[in-house]
């Protein structure tokens, strides 16, 4: 069995975002980057399946972007992926989901992956498109927003998360694309020995341009900070003083504190 996991590097969402010179995305300087949260579940699921099958499957991790994406790629290798592919593109943030998906599908086309794991969405763009487009381009099955995954005798039973706590149970055969939702598993922390072992694993670098569609289907008009609705009071400063002020406000404005 051959498994592909697609990961994206995104800024830490606690960062302060500034608009870049072109006005279409964030300025990268001063941002701390990490692996897209949803993709950590994807990596973990791939590694768990490999372990379940006695190490048989080969797990390839793929990321598109500039050289900085090697950092989460190395983390994925330390979590247990076998090898990595870096599809280099210094302007990956300027590509739309269609182009990103076409690069992944273009790379995968002749590789016969049985399973492709992606995150349900990326935290920065949040388009929730790439996984499903990849399946469409490859003509294989796709199951989205998965919160439970079990593989037995060549058949996957999965649960998709619907609204309000309802789940939908589906069964499918491979090949398939699976998009992973929060809570699917408990992503492991790489251990020091595994970080050391990962250093010996192969990372192949190729230009994304060799695979990706040249034309974008959508683009960003403008990127900006939302207008503050400014309905609330902001308290800053000394903890004890703020606590007193908050109690005063709650006494005045609510009926729950007297």
């Amino acid at each position, binding site marked *: 069995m051959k498994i592909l996991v697609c990961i994206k590097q995104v800024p830490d969402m606690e960062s302060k975002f500034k608009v870049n010179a072109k006005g279409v995305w964030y300025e990268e300087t001063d941002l701390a980057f990490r692996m897209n949260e949803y993709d950590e579940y994807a990596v973990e699921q791939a590694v768990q399946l490999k372990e379940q099958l006695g190490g048989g499957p080969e797990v390839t991790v793929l990321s598109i972007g500039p050289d900085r994406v090697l950092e989460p790629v190395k983390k994925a290798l330390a979590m247990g992926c076998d090898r990595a592919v870096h599809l280099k593109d210094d302007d990956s943030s300027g590509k739309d989901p269609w182009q990103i998906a076409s690069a992944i599908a273009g790379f995968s086309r002749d590789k016969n992956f049985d399973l492709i794991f992606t995150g349900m969405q990326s935290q920065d763009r949040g388009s929730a498109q790439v996984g499903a487009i990849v399946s469409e381009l490859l003509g294989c099955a796709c199951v989205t927003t998965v919160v439970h995954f079990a593989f037995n005798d060549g058949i996957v039973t999965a649960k998709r998360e619907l609204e309000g706590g309802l789940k939908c149970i589906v069964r499918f055969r491979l090949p398939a694309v699976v998009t992973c939702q*929060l809570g699917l598993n408990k992503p492991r922390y790489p251990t020091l020995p595994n970080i050391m072992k990962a250093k010996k694993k192969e990372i192949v670098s190729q230009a994304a341009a060799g695979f990706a569609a040249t034309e974008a289907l959508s683009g960003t008009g403008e990127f900006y900070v939302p207008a503050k609705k400014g309905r609330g009071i902001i308290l800053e400063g000394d903890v004890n003083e703020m606590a007193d002020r908050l109690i005063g406000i709650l006494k005045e404005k609510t009926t729950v504190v007297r």
Partner: protein
Amino acid sequence: MKALLVCEYREGKLLEGSYELISFADRLGVEKAIVLVGSENAVPKADARVYLANAAAWAEYNPEIHRKIVLEAVQRESPDYIVFLHSSYGWDLAPRVAAALKAAQISEVASLQDGKFEVSCCNGKMRRTVTSATERTVVTIQAGAFSFSGEPRGVPRVEMIAPPVAASAVEFIGYEAAEKKDVDLAKAAVIVSAGRGVGKKENVAAIDALAKALQGELGASRPVVDAGWVPHSHQVGTTGQTVSPKLYVACGISGAIQHLAGMKKSEFIVAINKDKDAPIGEVADVLVVADVNQFVPALTAKLRK
């Protein structure tokens, strides 16, 4: 201009969100047609053509067949926009339809800015307008962003689409109901919720202590539940409970749309966050900029006095 609205149906019923699609089309000021994989007795009330395929012909959910039906309606109606809700149904089906048509998809539209589609990004901290470069555009709209007011009325003109014969690689087995909840947060007058910002499981106790001091219940954001710090029955949000207490205190919660959806109707909202720009600030009546693990114990001590 014309929009084809892809309505939703589940467990024998038309889903309420379907009317948000109608409201979106009206605000966009375009003609509308509807496609529904459902049944005759659950057709939306609207003065529009409704392409109906009967879901009873196979199990309710089958992505391959749903995709084919939507594409059939697109062919018959030739719309400029194909609109889905940004829901578990929409984010499953919309990109497949978009890719099949090689059309742009604009995900999770939250508002219209002079006819431009505005979407939220970076976990709600930033916004962008998205443009389409293709003849047709697939759009998914944020749940609740284009709410429908008033009684649905109108007489649909139903046209049947015969369920296509398609072997599907994905077999629908059934639904699994939501877990039974042991706390009914909906009844609580005060809810104090722990978010990822509390840092670790041990720190949840201090949040619970504040809840007790206010005679309220403990709530939680999803990551705190996923990590096993707090049981799922306490989760607030789209995949948890929807609450509207007299007082909601969000401790170390960023304010992602899925969390806000569950609590923004609270009467009074206090947020404690070290990040002054956290999107929770948009709905908070009071934003306390502080380390939650310092502020909460101090507040609890004073309340107990």
